[in-house]
């Protein structure tokens, strides 16, 4: 992962309106990247540093007027309310005392500061130092961690060297003007829903240990964020790596990677459909994907165990053997060892013999 990918992911998250948290060592340019992002858009930006604030700076200052307590919002919140669009940058999230973190939570989640609500056009970005680097750092509370997309802010010698010489790159927002269309959003939601139907265990996994808890973890809320981020990636035509960063940042590494690999295989042909119509089967170009399809087809045919699907699987393998004899050979071995009773070895086996003989595997 490199810095450009992280910046791209940041831009997508801001465009999609999902609160994002940048994890990085002090002095690595997190603040300047966010400020540059706002300046590039000509948006107002408010940098609020958690560790030097009190809870009342986020929850509103309690003022007694005519016997009632009003929660007066601070100036930065009033300025943001006046602007239609803007960036709220909450810095040093983990070094803030827990009472301040709790107050920041409400800002991030409900966008409420004191008695006022931030307009929808205000985007929230936070930054934090990893607990092992901040001497007085606290672990992030799991509920707060769950509301944020976690992005690691990498330091690359190359980027720093180039940045010092010719200036650091300014992040550009992707797909901001082009709001994700309703169709795109519902496609993304459908993809997430389909995945969760296959893996219901991943809908909610409350972390057991506190060190893991301060990063993203799967919950219905974070899966919804994944759907919004996917739609945002589509609209902004973000790179595959930025998308991966966002998904794993929202729901954690394990569930995120499982979702991504499910997505990658979702566009492969359905084995049942291939078996039903073996003659119109088109082998994917990439050998490893071809292998994945053929393995699935063979596994399904073997599990049915009847002569008809076994014959259909051989026709698929025979078609594949013309384009990729090695891939076909690999799955043919499994198919041949699971011959149902009464089935005859098809002639296609003979086409595979030369490859097996050349590999020294045919007795």
């Amino acid at each position, binding site marked *: 992962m490199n810095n450009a990918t992280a910046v791209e992911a940041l831009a997508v998250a801001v465009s999609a309106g999902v609160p994002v948290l940048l994890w990085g060592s002090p002095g690595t340019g997190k603040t300047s990247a966010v400020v540059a992002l706002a300046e590039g858009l000509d948006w107002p930006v408010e940098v609020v540093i958690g560790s030097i604030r*009190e809870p009342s700076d986020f929850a509103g200052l*309690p003022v007694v007027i005519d016997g009632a307590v009003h929660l007066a919002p601070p100036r930065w919140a009033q300025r943001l309310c006046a602007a239609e669009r803007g960036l709220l940058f909450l810095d040093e999230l983990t070094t803030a005392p827990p009472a301040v973190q709790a107050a920041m939570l409400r800002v991030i989640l409900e966008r409420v500061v004191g008695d006022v609500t931030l307009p929808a056009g205000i985007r929230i970005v936070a930054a934090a130092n990893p*607990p092992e680097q901040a001497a007085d750092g606290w672990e992030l509370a799991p509920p707060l961690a769950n509301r944020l997309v976690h992005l690691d802010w990498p330091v690359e010698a190359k980027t720093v060297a180039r940045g010092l010489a010719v200036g650091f790159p300014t992040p550009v927002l992707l797909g901001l003007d082009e709001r994700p269309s309703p169709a795109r959003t519902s496609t993304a939601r459908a993809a997430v829903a389909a995945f969760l139907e296959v893996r219901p265990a991943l809908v909610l996994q409350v972390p057991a240990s506190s060190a893991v808890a301060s990063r993203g973890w799967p919950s219905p809320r974070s899966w919804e964020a994944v759907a919004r981020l996917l739609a945002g990636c589509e609209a902004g035509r973000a790179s595959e790596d930025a998308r991966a960063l966002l998904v794993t940042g929202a729901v954690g590494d394990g569930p995120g990677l499982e979702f*991504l*690999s499910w997505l990658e295989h979702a566009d492969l042909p359905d084995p049942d459909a291939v078996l039903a119509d073996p003659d119109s089967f088109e082998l994917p170009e990439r050998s*490893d994907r071809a292998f994945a399809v053929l393995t699935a087809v063979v596994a399904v045919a073997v599990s049915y165990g009847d002569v008809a699907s076994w014959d259909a699987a051989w026709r698929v393998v025979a078609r594949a053997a013309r384009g990729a004899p090695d*891939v076909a050979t690999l799955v043919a071995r499994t198919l041949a060892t699971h011959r149902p009773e009464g089935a005859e070895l098809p002639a296609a086996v003979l086409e595979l013999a030369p490859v097996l003989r050349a*590999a020294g595997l045919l007795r």
Partner: protein
Amino acid sequence: MTVSWHRADELPPHLRQRWAAARVWAAHQAPYLATAVLALQPLVVRVDAGAGPDLRGFPADQAWHVYLDPDVLAAAEPQQIGFWLLHQVTHLLRRHGDRFPCGGSAAGGAPLESRTPEQRRWNLAGDAEINDDLRAGELTLPEEAVSPARLGLPDGWTAEQYWDVLPDGPADAGPSGSRASRGDGPPVPPADGPPVPPVDCGSGCDGQSRPWDCGRPGLSALSQRLLSRDVADRIREHQKRRGDVPAGWQRWSDDILTPVVNWRRQLAAAVRHGVADVAGRVDFTYRRPSRRAAAVPDIVLPSLRQPLPQVAMVLDTSGSMSDDMLAQALGEVSGVLRSLGLGRRNLRVICCDAKAYGQQRILDARDVRLLGGGGTDMGAGLAAAAELRPRPDLAIVLTDGHTPWPRRAPDGIRVVVGLMDADGRTPEWATTVLVDTGQAGTPR
């Protein structure tokens, strides 16, 4: 020298068949690596004039392209090609390109005509790490392949370990030359003829670009990550069914599938939370009026508070605990407590085997006198902690867990257990952190 790249489809049929046979052979040798071998995208390299680059090892780049020289392909047996495919896939899966110790300085620069001594040394080290795992099957190594035995070194090390002991800048004479200069291990000359020059495994091995690298996008970073996990899953499955996966591959798949949790961080978090929960922290409260409130009567200001808790550490000093383990965990805990501002007045230590020994007030973990060495009963230690005056708010127990526990937590005391043995048992009323002191010592 101008290099052009062609698809494997453009090869003559007999070479295409040889390539297919090599992939089948490789997938047969190591079925768990089949997807990885198939993910390598072949590119045929042709040069317009002069001698082509040295592609004897079927070098790969970090985007999972593998470069073929038709002449090499025609001369090699499918088994030999298959061996190199497995070999290059291993370089890529184990990310040798990112692990190159001298990487970064020349990264992104123009490709060099010949490799630096460091690159050659790292190639040897990486090859040694790979080949002892590949040889574990029924493979015979091609004569130009490096193995730990041929370098006169033991099997089973990581590339970094081999790198450390290999001499600086082995001459172009290759492994045989370096062996002679080391003077240990029996020199094993190749079976016939002069020593074979070392094979270049390409940029997939050290991340530095080569003249034949095409620079086209290949397998994306995400696909590579997914592929690694897929291979790791297959290794685990294969090990369960057949049980013949080489140890190096098992370690690798464990690293990929179960990332190591840093026990230092977890223990620090548990202790910090424990202290914070019983004591309140440097935190804001509206329970007491702020002293500044008199100046602004209309505004309700919070005040600050930080009561310091009393902490008792109960150390299991029974025979089953090693002093070294205990010292490491003790050092971590006392470091965290010191950073929270807990001094000598607030921290007491109780050593405990079958009975509890008297309390010690300490400033530094090194000052603790470890008493005892018999059987185990942490209940006695906790009971002793509960009787201390002033009464502790937090008890931190460092134990291997092979001990009876009281049915309930001592009244009003929060308990954090640092468990030194995964098989040990802890009560559910305590916060438990598994401390694996061995893990820091195993290199990846």
